[in-house]
């Protein structure tokens, strides 16, 4: 069976049809073969009534329709259907019945309206056989209605399923792209922004006091650039992983890896996550310090482990918030960040003073993206500015 299918696929591939319906192609071939076989059998058994020009023409048209249906099912299957119905009226055989039923089903699968029309034609053609006026007309019609609707419904159902698969595939593709954009922004873009800020800071400070200090500053700049490089590679890796696993639904791996920790059952998962968050905050705090900021960062106690999706969101949001402070806040004034975990939500709050010559009021694209995500999840994200004071309060419901 598989060999036939692959042979047929190759044939179709070479001919180059627009649609790819291997199942339809295979079934058409089988029906064509069965048709020929049955007709031959009938002809040899009962020569007089079978072999007439009209019947032969109809059989040929059906064959043409079936063969053509392998390549352009939308058009050729109609031919097979109509010819089959006419043949059924003249000379009832098994294969033409199978042909018209399957053709109706396929047409319904390909296109809803085609299926409906084909079923209508099928129903009408069945009423030709019965004499009008007899009580059997109603019964026969109802029987046929029930019976012939079967291919229509099957076809429609398969059509809907295929549509839904396609839609979910498109959605997944878009989701992956958005994730990649976000991870690119959160890591590399932020790393480079930090690098630029460091260079600006070094420039304003002027000559360093000693060679030791000079080397230290260079080393820090190099480390920051190195981090950006590592993140670039990590993002490239995750993109390449995506293109290999297109058919499976895979979670995009984050460059800022929060899953390098081995899952030991004995270790308290919440404590591990807490330590990770604390470490992230420490890193960011150190970075802000090197830019001349002083402030306080409070991390509340995490009692229940967060889902991986929530951890990713939280770490991404925190990174973005710290970058925001680095870019827009006044280093000579205090900043403060607090993160607390209630039973049902996570509350993040940032408070700082906007730098004097800062032109950017409101949200940058990075924070705007997080606002959308959080508000869509049913949380809140409010920014309050008064004179030069900037304050953010975000709550994220803990169900992600």
């Amino acid at each position, binding site marked *: 069976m598989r060999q036939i299918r692959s042979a047929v696929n190759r044939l179709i591939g070479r001919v180059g049809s627009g649609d790819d319906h291997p199942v339809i192609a295979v079934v058409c071939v089988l029906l064509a073969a069965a048709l020929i076989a049955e007709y031959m059998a009938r002809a040899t058994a009962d020569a007089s009534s079978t072999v007439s020009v009209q019947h032969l023409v109809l059989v040929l048209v059906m064959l043409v329709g079936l063969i053509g249906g392998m390549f352009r099912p939308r058009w050729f299957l109609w031919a097979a259907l109509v010819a089959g119905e006419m043949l059924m009226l003249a000379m009832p055989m098994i294969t033409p019945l199978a042909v018209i039923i399957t053709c109706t089903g396929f047409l319904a699968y390909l296109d809803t309206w085609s299926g409906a029309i084909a079923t209508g034609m099928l129903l009408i053609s069945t009423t030709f056989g019965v004499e009008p006026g007899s009580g059997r007309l109603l019964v026969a019609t109802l029987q046929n209605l029930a019976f012939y609707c079967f291919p229509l419904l099957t076809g429609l159902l398969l059509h809907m399923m295929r549509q839904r698969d396609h839609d979910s595939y498109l959605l997944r593709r878009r989701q992956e792209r958005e994730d990649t954009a976000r991870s690119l922004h959160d890591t590399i873009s932020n790393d480079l922004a930090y690098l630029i800020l460091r260079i600006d800071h070094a420039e304003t400070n002027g000559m360093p006091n000693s060679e030791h200090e000079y080397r*230290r500053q260079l*080393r*820090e700049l190099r*480390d920051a650039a190195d*981090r950006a490089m590592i993140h670039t590679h990590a993002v490239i890796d995750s993109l390449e992983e995506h293109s290999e696993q297109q058919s499976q639904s895979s979670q995009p791996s984050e460059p800022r890896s929060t899953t*390098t*920790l*081995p899952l030991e059952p004995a*270790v308290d998962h919440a*404590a*591990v996550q807490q*330590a*990770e968050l*604390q*470490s992230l*905050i*420490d*890193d960011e*705090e*150190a970075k802000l*310090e090197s830019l001349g900021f002083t*402030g*306080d*960062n*409070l*991390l*509340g*106690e*995490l*009692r229940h482990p967060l889902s991986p999706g929530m951890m990713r969101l939280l770490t991404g949001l925190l990174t973005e918030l710290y970058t925001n402070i680095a870019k827009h806040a006044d280093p000579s*004034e*205090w*900043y*403060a*960040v*607090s*993160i*607390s*975990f*209630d039973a049902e939500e996570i*509350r993040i*709050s*940032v*408070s*700082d*003073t906007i730098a004097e010559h800062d032109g950017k009021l409101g949200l940058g694209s990075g924070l705007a993206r997080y606002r959308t995500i959080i508000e869509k999840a049913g949380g809140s994200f*409010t920014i*309050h500015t*008064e004179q030069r*004071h900037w*304050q953010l*309060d975000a709550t994220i419901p803990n169900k992600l």
Partner: protein
Amino acid sequence: MVTGGTVGFMGLRSEPETAGVIRIGVLDNDPFALDAMCAMIAAMSRDFRIVWSTGSPAVAIEHCHNAHTRPDVLVLDMALGGITGADVCRRIRRRTSEVGVICVTSYSTDAYRDEAIKAGVQGLLAKEQLKTDIADAVRRAAVGKPTAAQASLGFHDAASAHALLSGTVPARMSDDMKDSLSAREKDILRLYAQRLTTDEIAARLGITKGSVFTYVHRAAEKFGVASRREVLEACARYDLL
């Protein structure tokens, strides 16, 4: 109108100061409790002026450090959704002795007392007794002192608490501290002091990032601090590495 998370500015320093007015900031993450406390405190005396109230610890800390919005007294709840009031107070007290801090709690005062004392709070009051205790406590805290009752329980005044927390106490503590860090913890902290990143430290020592976090976390607990920076500060102050 003040709700949890937003700040109402009702009096900035730029206004001419009436003698004897005590500027008060209030922090509580429950918006109803916040409103109730503000109302009650303001009603206690004409000298009490609530200059801001908020549900966010970050905002409260930042306001206490900023000269424009710094109050004379900060009143805050001990339980702030996973962050303790003591933690908030410690961060403020480390940097300044100019803000008196009063904590309130709806739970048992005994449970939180030690933590509050170490954090440099001037008094810990039970919410049920707030009406009787708060006026006196606020007046005393405005000059940085605990009430007599609180002092007898061990609470310090703001100035000495500040001195303790900002490390001007001589290295008598270092003997106790020196032995409590394990060799591995010292190695890791030394590498952090040399400004290596967590990834580099993990690679160099051949352990996972999770283990590095755990060691730092343990060292932080030994010092009674929360963040890596504080651990390194403590190590630098007491010359432990």
